[in-house]
């Protein structure tokens, strides 16, 4: 009976399907591959971080820019947070749908969470207004400015949490597709009995469900 090589030990099954599932929901690709421990770990960490960001930001920190895609530089400058948050498919898909609905003058489909704030060209005669601590009216140029003003530092924290969650999920997608970035030959190999696949021994590499 031959021992598995390190290269064999990090070859995850069904990498493309798993990568797609991992993008849609963090950790789902690993659960699909039977790598339960890592799936639960990624799901808890990334969804927890994203949810915390949404709570801190009162659900107003995830929205796609309504600027046209060209010039690219302007779009990226305005919409880079959502591009990062799009590392999670369950965020990206409703976000892009809500952007399209906003540009088509249609109401929100998923509630106010992913719907873009009113842009400056649509403010018209009713600009967004906040009331400060001295009960003075603060007139904002657009909805995004109002969100930043109302939430203050919490807007930044919520934005950072959700952006980092999206970026971290890109690492998870890669891991679901091709295994750990830096294969560690010691992982499980020392503890596995003769002839046993160390990953299988850990319960992390059972075949995917049909």
């Amino acid at each position, binding site marked *: 009976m031959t021992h598995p090589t390190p290269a064999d*030990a*990090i070859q995850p099954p069904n990498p493309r399907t798993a990568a797609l599932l991992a993008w849609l929901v963090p950790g789902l690709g690993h659960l699909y591959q039977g*790598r339960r*421990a*890592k799936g639960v*770990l*990624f799901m808890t*960490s*990334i969804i*927890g*971080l994203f949810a*915390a960001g949404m709570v*801190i930001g009162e659900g107003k920190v995830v929205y796609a820019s309504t600027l046209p895609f060209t010039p690219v530089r302007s779009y990226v400058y305005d919409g880079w947070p959502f591009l990062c948050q799009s590392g999670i498919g369950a965020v990206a898909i409703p976000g892009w749908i809500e952007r399209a609905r906003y540009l088509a003058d249609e109401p929100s489909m998923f509630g106010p969470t992913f719907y873009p704030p009113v842009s400056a060209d649509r403010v018209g005669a009713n600009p967004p207004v906040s009331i400060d601590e001295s009960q003075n009216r603060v007139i904002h140029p657009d909805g995004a400015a109002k969100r930043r003003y109302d939430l203050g*530092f919490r807007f930044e*924290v919520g934005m*950072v*949490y959700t952006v*980092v*969650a999206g970026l*971290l999920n890109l*690492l*998870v997608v*890669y*891991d679901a597709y091709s*295994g*750990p*970035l*830096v294969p*560690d030959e*010691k*992982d*499980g190999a020392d503890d596995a009995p003769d002839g046993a696949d*160390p*990953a299988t021994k*850990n319960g*992390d*590499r059972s075949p995917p469900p049909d």
Partner: protein
Amino acid sequence: MLILLAEVNRLVYAPLLLAAVSLVYAGTRHEDLRSILRHAGSFGVWTVVFMAAIAAVIEVLAFFQ
């Protein structure tokens, strides 16, 4: 130093971010859960030490400003 004390309340947002980044980063480099947790712990400690060192350098620079 007074500036840092005034910002202490903002640091409450750091642990969750640190924990998530450490766990996911370590998780993408190992397959065994014990190795992941060990790597995440050391990664988190070194991140805190690194950030503290940067804060100290900034404080020293601010002192001589």
